[in-house]
């Protein structure tokens, strides 16, 4: 594999570390006014977006290999560890998503009165870590970023969260770390077997069948155990049903900006891991496990949506909808893996499924963030109430809010013309081509999603004014519209013109789909 020429300008490092630099700077400004610290945090959080747009401008969509590569030896004597960053279509999409969601989440948290500076610092740290996960190409620092992202998230949930935040935060962190511990073990074994931790090299080795042979040489249960370890770490993060029980409480108890970031960006880290690590490095093992995994993904889709229907806490409801939506991504990936090696021509369907997965990641990031933002507004207006029955007739008094929230809801339930449809359609189209039965079952998830989202809108916005909306309830102020507006605008743009995203990921998805084979 030819080594790509090193980038003259460390754009990717800059993307990762610019929020951290902002956090460091913010940490030095003791005693500044809250508005100043908020503004500073917002400005710094926009850095990755700006740099991401620079990267988008310079990005060559025709190339499959990572671009802007930075590769330097980090710990060569003891370990074959490289500082290896690269940006391909998948990473670019997620970097842009992070760049969009973070400032928006900060805007949505504008009213955080409790230590706003620390809030901003933690957020910037979180953003940098997430970006690091999306850009790293070596397991070592990929894992560092992966784990580092937990720390600020933990404090965000614990310190700024709702009444049960402490428990939720502990559960979130311990559960996730528990998963990652298995992943670390898995990679340690992999390193022992292959001597490298570089994703691209590992993928190449896997494609050549070397990994399978070397793991088999370890003997015993090792080949399976390594796969299961890595799988567990990722499955908890996404989360794949039934590893999702931490999610509703964590999302529900996190502060509004935290929920937005957790669902908008951090849940994508897991799916990204599946696409970047598990699938390329363990194609055979994944293929072998897919019948079971497909069932789990379907359970996530259908049961996730049904569980959402049962929730009376709006945040938990939206959180379950995340379980449902992310399961679509995994369903598509598993279906592709399931069909790998089959004789029938599946490339077109696989392309659609994988494109759909990536688009769904981006779209879900937008719409779920918007939904959490809306629920956050309701929560802040009502002094912490977020029950399904605490509101009623909000649309009467707040038409703008109703419109923005409604658009987000319909985007989430996959209404054509908004962004959600494109990804879901592609996933369904792909999955149907690969495994028609799974697609048919998944349809029930679509229906259930529609039911509970419409119930949400009906109970909160329609009907006579009730609950909090019966009293003083003004329509959105400028600062409340500010986070929603960019998201909604993007929903429309991507719904009508998906080529914006599709153009970035086409080459990489095509190349994936063209090399569907087992070693």
């Amino acid at each position: 594999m030819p080594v790509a020429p090193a980038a003259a300008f460390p754009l990717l490092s800059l993307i990762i570390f610019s929020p951290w630099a902002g956090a460091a700077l913010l940490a030095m400004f003791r005693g500044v006014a809250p508005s100043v610290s908020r503004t500073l945090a917002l400005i710094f959080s926009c850095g990755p977006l700006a740099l991401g747009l620079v990267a988008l401008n310079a990005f060559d969509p025709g190339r499959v290999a990572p671009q802007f590569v930075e590769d330097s030896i980090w710990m060569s004597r003891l370990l074959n560890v490289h500082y290896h960053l690269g940006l391909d279509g998948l990473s670019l999409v997620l970097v842009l998503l992070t760049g969009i969601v973070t400032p928006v989440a900060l805007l949505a948290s504008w009213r955080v009165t409790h230590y706003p500076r620390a809030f901003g610092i933690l957020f910037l740290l979180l953003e940098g870590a997430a970006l690091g996960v999306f850009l790293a190409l070596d397991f070592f620092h990929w894992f560092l970023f992966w784990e580092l992202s937990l720390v600020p998230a933990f404090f965000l949930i614990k310190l700024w969260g709702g009444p049960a935040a402490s428990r939720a935060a502990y559960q979130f962190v311990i559960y996730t770390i528990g998963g990652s511990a298995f992943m670390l073990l898995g990679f340690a074994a992999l390193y022992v077997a292959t001597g490298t931790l570089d994703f691209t090299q590992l993928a190449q080795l896997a494609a050549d069948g070397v990994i399978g042979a070397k793991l088999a040489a370890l003997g015993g249960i090792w080949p399976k155990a390594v796969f299961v370890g890595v799988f567990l770490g990722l499955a908890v993060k996404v989360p794949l049903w039934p590893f999702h029980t931490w999610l509703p409480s964590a999302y529900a108890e996190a502060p509004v900006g935290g929920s937005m970031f957790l669902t908008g960006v951090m849940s994508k880290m897991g799916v990204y891991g599946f696409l970047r690590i598990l699938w390329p490095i363990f194609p055979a093992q994944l293929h072998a496990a897919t019948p079971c995994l497909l069932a789990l993904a379907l359970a996530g889709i259908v049961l996730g949506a049904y569980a959402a229907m049962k929730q009376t806490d709006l945040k938990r409801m939206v959180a379950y909808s995340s379980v449902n939506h992310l399961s679509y991504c995994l369903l598509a990936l598993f279906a592709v893996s399931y069909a790998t090696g089959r004789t029938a021509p599946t490339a077109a369907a696989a392309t659609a499924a994988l494109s759909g997965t990536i688009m769904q990641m981006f779209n879900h990031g937008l719409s779920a963030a918007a939904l959490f933002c809306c629920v956050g507004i309701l929560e802040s207006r009502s002094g912490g109430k977020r029950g399904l029955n605490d509101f009623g007739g909000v649309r009467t008094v707040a038409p703008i809010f109703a419109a923005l929230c409604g658009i987000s809801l319909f985007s989430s339930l996959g209404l054509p013309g908004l962004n959600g449809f494109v990804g879901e359609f592609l996933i369904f189209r792909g999955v149907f081509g690969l495994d028609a039965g799974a697609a048919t079952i998944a349809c029930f998830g679509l229906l259930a999603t529609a039911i509970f989202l419409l119930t949400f809108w009906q109970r909160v916005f329609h009907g006579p004014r009730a609950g909090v909306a019966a009293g003083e309830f003004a329509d959105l102020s400028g600062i409340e519209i500010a986070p929603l507006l960019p998201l909604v605008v993007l929903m429309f743009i991507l719904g009508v013109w998906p080529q914006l995203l599709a153009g970035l990921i086409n080459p990489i998805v095509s190349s994936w789909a063209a090399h569907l084979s087992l070693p």
Partner: protein
Amino acid sequence: MGLSVQNLWLIPLLPLVAAAIGALTPRTGRTLAAGAAILAMSFSFLLSCGALVTALANPATHATSNFAWFDLGMGALRLGWLLDPLTAFMCVMVTFVGTLIFIFSTGYMHEDANAKQFFCFLSLFASAMLGVIVANSLLLLFVSWELVGLASYLLIGFWFHKPEAAGAAKKAFITTRIGDLGLLLGMLWLYDSTGSLLFYDGGHGVLEAGALSALTAHTALGGFALSTIIGLLIFCGAVGKSGQFPLHVWLPDAMEGPTPVSALIHAATMVAAGVFLIARVYPLMSADQALAHVPFHALTVVAFIGAITALMGALIAVAQNDIKRILAFSTVSQLGYMMLAIGVGSWVAAIFHLLTHAFFKALLFLGAGSVIHAAHHEQDIRSLGGLRSHMKVTFATFAIGMMALAGVPFLFSGFWSKEGILHAAHEWDVSRVPLLFGLAAVVLTAFYMTRLVAETFFGKARSHASEHAHESPASMTLPLVVLAVCAIALGFLGTPAFPWLQAKLLGETEVLGHSLLAGSGLMMLSVVLVALGLGTGWAIYGRVTREKSTSPDPLAARFPGVIAFLGARMKFDELYAATVFKLNAATATFADVLDRFVWDGAVRFLARLGEFAGVVNREADEDGLNAGFDAGSESLRGTGKAYSRAQTGDAHGYLRIIAIGFVVLVLIMMLGGNR
């Protein structure tokens, strides 16, 4: 003066622009929103007329204009526009009726605070509906189809502060979405097996011979041809949207919306979209007709569903008391007719009935709206009565609409279109059931419409509201008059003597007339049946009019059980509540319990296990390991203390030592070594 297919997108775009304008104007800008909507719709109508001219010039061709929506790595997802007589006629109908209803709405919604939103939603609906019509791709059709559903949702729930309206909106959306999932699956299957979703694409489209033969050649589940399965899945969508049995339950509830909405969406256009869809994919639906070895054909299902719906709708309508509910079930019934027509192989008759029905049903709904508007939102026919003298124009036009719907012979459009359907059913050789059902529905239609008119307009006023009712403003009556004229005139486009419309739809260049006497037996029968219905209705309700709003219905007095069952809409809602809803709720509870107890319990058990290990570990640590570390730390601290004595804190001293050190070093260098 024609409009080429390349510019066809203008037709849906104009209302969309109007909707955008409506969305962005402030609440007070209702005049702007309404003006933009009407203007856009009128221009769309003119453009549609242009399209019609173009289409009629070459009725046999399917002119298309396709483009790529977005690239998908391997190939692109393509959408397109299609212009053929079907599209053109539908466009003209929708834009024309739409314009009239928009104008009517300016009067009807005059007092509503949210009128600008109303026009925004109406425009959005019109745009989406036109999108359905002009789409040359099942995907684009589906997109527009869902947007139609959204607009319908918004409009039904327009008075969202009423819980019933909000619930009805949700019910409509979810029910139609059930059908849409079938459509989605059918679409996916179609895409997967043909690699395209374009209807016509120069020989590569899914409705063209190549794809169809491939589809019929494949056998899927249960010995059916692939085309049958796909066709039936697509038909699911139509069932949901067009209120066919068993998904018709949402349509009567949808009458919670403002009446113009009912007229536009739930009578004239949207519900017809299902019929249109099946007519559009008719080549696919009928592809399996030539196959002999299949259990049954797709169209057979369509015909039976249509027939059941036609009869069921008419039956339920007999026992309803709400003026809009009666019309709603009448719509269900008429849509059943249309489906029946397609099912028996005559999609042209279905479209003819669709067009005529659109006009006279819109007329009826707008007339009902006029009545409701005048009677201060009193909708119960038992409380109305005697409006004939107060509202002359409304009465006259409503009567025309009623006669068109009832199929009063020769003069009214409904007669001719219904006749076509019955004729087609008569010629169908698979089963006689649809024909019999259809004929039964003819009687019932005439009966319940007579009842409606008699109760509403004749007799004496039975409530305060109907006593003081007065004629609606010109903006409302003018559309009524125009529609009434159409309800009469339109029938002559497709009489058997000169079936111009049918010929154009089928793409024939010459119009071959038949003798009116060719099928005269059936026609005579239906005339007699209509007369029977009218007569019975008049005998029961018109001869002796109701005294008070509370006095019992003569029919209900005679057959209390039957009427009660029909009045409760054959208990479909209760049936669904007992089965589907229960199942749904049970699944939700199951999912929730699974999460809360099983999976979370497992996690907690693991956590407890970890905690226990921690306790054990702590005990071991404190007693065993820590003691040694403490000692080591102490000795390290002693060393540090010793070194720290060098820190005297005397800066001069440091400086002095540096200076002296420097001197010593230099001296060593100078004296000590040659090197």
